[in-house]
C-alpha cells in the first residue's frame, strides 16, 4: 500500500499502541466525556419536569434521548489538538514534524481516530446503559439514520479543521490557554452542548446558525432524533459543506503563515 492510506494505517497502529499504554488517562477522558452530557441530561430533565413537563419542545425523555446521542456524537467529533499544539511548541517538538515530507494534519487526524477506535466501544456501552436507566424517547427512521452517517463524518472533519486552525495560535502566543478557554466556551454554548439550541433564546440561536459549532454537534443529534424538517436537514448539510471548505482554506493559509513565523523567530 502506498501513500496516504499507508501513512494513515501506520499512524493508526502507532496511535492505538500508544494509547493503550495509558489506560489511566483513557479512563479519565472517558469518564469526562460520559459525565458531562449525563449532568446536562439530569439537570434539563429536572427543569422540564418542574416547568410543566416540557421546555422548548423537549420533555424529560426527549432530553434523555438528546444527551445520549450527543454523548456519542461528541465522542466522534471532539479533538484535543489545541492542548497537543501547546505542548509541542513548548517542548520544541515541531522541528521534527516540519522535517517530514508530509502535512502534519494527517498524523493528527490518524491519532485522533486511533483514540476513538479504542474508546468508542466504551461510550456505546455507556449509551446503552443510560438508555436502560432513563428510557429516552428515540424514534429513528431509516432515512434519518442513513443521513446521520455523512452528517457525523462532516461534523468530525469540520470540528477537526476548525480546532486545528485555532490551535495554530500556539505559534503566535505563549498564552494559548486563554484562547483555548474562549474556544471551549463558544463550543459549549453554540454547539447545543449545554442545552439543545431550541431551548436557548432566539438571538443565541441566530448566532449559532452562523458559527461552525452547531454543525459539529447539535445538527447530527437533532437530525437523527427526527427534530429537523427536510429543508432544515438540507440547510445543515449545506452549512457543514460550507464550513468544511472555509475551514480548509483558512487552515491552509494559517498554516503557511504560522510556519513562516516559526521559521523566522527560531525553532
Amino acid at each position, binding site marked *: 500500500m502506498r501513500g496516504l492510506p499507508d501513512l494513515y494505517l501506520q499512524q493508526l497502529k502507532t496511535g492505538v499502541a500508544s494509547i493503550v499504554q495509558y489506560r489511566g488517562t483513557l479512563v479519565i477522558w472517558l469518564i469526562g466525556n460520559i459525565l458531562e452530557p449525563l449532568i446536562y441530561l439530569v439537570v434539563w430533565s429536572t427543569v422540564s419536569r418542574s416547568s410543566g413537563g416540557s421546555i422548548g419542545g423537549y420533555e424529560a425523555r426527549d432530553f434523555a434521548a438528546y444527551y445520549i446521542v450527543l454523548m456519542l456524537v461528541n465522542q466522534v467529533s471532539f479533538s484535543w489538538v489545541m492542548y497537543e499544539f501547546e505542548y509541542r511548541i513548548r517542548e520544541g517538538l515541531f522541528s521534527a514534524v516540519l*522535517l517530514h*515530507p508530509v502535512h502534519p494534519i494527517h498524523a493528527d487526524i490518524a491519532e485522533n481516530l486511533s483514540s476513538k477506535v479504542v474508546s468508542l466501544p466504551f461510550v456505546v456501552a455507556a449509551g446503552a446503559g443510560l438508555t436502560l436507566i432513563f428510557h429516552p424517547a428515540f424514534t429513528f427512521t431509516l432515512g434519518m439514520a442513513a443521513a446521520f452517517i455523512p452528517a457525523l463524518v462532516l461534523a468530525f472533519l469540520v470540528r477537526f479543521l476548525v480546532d486545528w486552525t485555532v490551535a495554530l495560535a500556539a505559534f503566535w502566543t505563549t498564552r494559548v490557554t486563554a484562547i483555548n478557554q474562549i474556544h471551549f466556551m463558544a463550543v459549549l454554548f453554540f454547539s447545543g452542548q449545554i442545552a439543545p439550541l431550541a431551548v436557548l433564546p432566539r438571538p443565541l440561536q441566530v448566532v449559532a446558525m452562523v458559527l461552525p459549532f452547531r454543525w459539529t454537534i447539535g445538527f447530527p443529534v437533532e437530525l437523527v432524533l427526527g427534530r429537523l424538517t427536510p429543508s432544515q436537514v438540507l440547510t445543515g448539510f449545506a452549512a457543514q459543506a460550507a464550513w468544511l471548505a472555509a475551514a480548509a482554506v483558512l487552515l491552509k493559509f494559517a498554516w503557511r503563515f504560522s510556519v513562516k513565523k516559526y521559521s523566522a523567530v527560531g525553532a
Partner: protein
Amino acid sequence: MEIASAIRVRDLRKTYVVSEREPGLRAALASLVRRPKSEVRAVDGISFDLAPGEIVGFLGPNGAGKTTTLKMLSGLLHPTSGELSVVSYVPWKRDKAFLRQITLVMGQRNQLVWDIPAADSFELNRAIYRIPPADYRRTLDELVALLELEPLLAKPVRNLSLGERMKCEIAASLLHRPGVVFLDEPTIGLDVTMQRRIRTFIADYNGRNGATVLLTSHYMADVEALCKRVIVIHQGKLLFDGELAGLVKKFTAHKTIVVQLKDCAADLRAYGEVVSCEDGRLTLRVPKTETARVTQRLLADLPVIDLTVADPPIEEVIERVFARETA
C-alpha cells in the same frame, strides 16, 4: 567544469529580534508597557561549500551559531539574508523532494514515539517517507546490523538508555537513505564505547552511500576520526575553513615535546615551558621554530630514554582559537 556543490552557502545571515528585560518586579511591570528590543546576530555572513560525499566538522563554542546554521540548512529556519542551496533546493521552501533527501539528527526526542517500541517508529517513518518495502527491509537490516539494534527493537523507547535511544534515533533518521546528513552533537552524553561505535557508523554510512555529512560535536575525537576538513565559526562569523591539520598549523605557534627521563629532578625550564612532569615523563611546550634545536639540545644534554614531538591536542588548539577571538 565546476563540480556542483552538495551544499552552497553564501553570505548567510540570521538575525533574531529579542525582547530585553532587566531582572526584578519593577522591570517586569515596565515590560508590560514597553519592551526594548535588540538584535542578535546568530549567524553573521558565513560562506562555504560542501562537495558531494564530504564529511565536514562544524565547530564552535556554545552560541556560535552552529545549530542556527544547521536549522537553516535543513529548512527549519528562514535566513535573514544570503544565499543557500542544498542539493539544488532552497531549504526554507521545504519542498517534499528536498525533505526526502536530507535528515537532521538533533537531540534525543525527535524521530521516535516515546511509548512504543522503536521498531514501530521505524515502520511509521517508512510510511512517512514512502520508502518502497524492499528498500526499507534492506536499509533496516543494514542499520540494525551496523548499530547492533536487534536487542533494542522490541523495547518501548522510554525504557531505553540514552545511548540506545541515540542509536535508534540515528537509525530512524537514516531509513530513507538521505544523501545529506546534518548531525548536531550525535555523541553527546554517551560513553566512550558508544561514541566510538557511532563514529564508526557515520564513517561507514558515508562510505556506503556517498552521503554528504555536516557534523557538530564537542568531542574532538569525533572530529579527528571523521573529518578531514573543519569549518570553525565563532559569534556567527567564519573563523577557519580548511583541513584539520591546517587549523593546528594556523593557530598554534607551539609544539609539544614529551621526554622520558629517569626522574623529574633536573630543572629544565631553560629548554622551554614545562607543562608537566610525572614519573620522569616531562612535557615541554616550545615555539615551533625552536623545536629542532631544543630536541637536539635535550638529546645531547640529558640521559633521554624516549622522546616524541607532537602538535598540541586539538581541544587545546580550538580553545586557544576561541580565546584569542574573544580577547
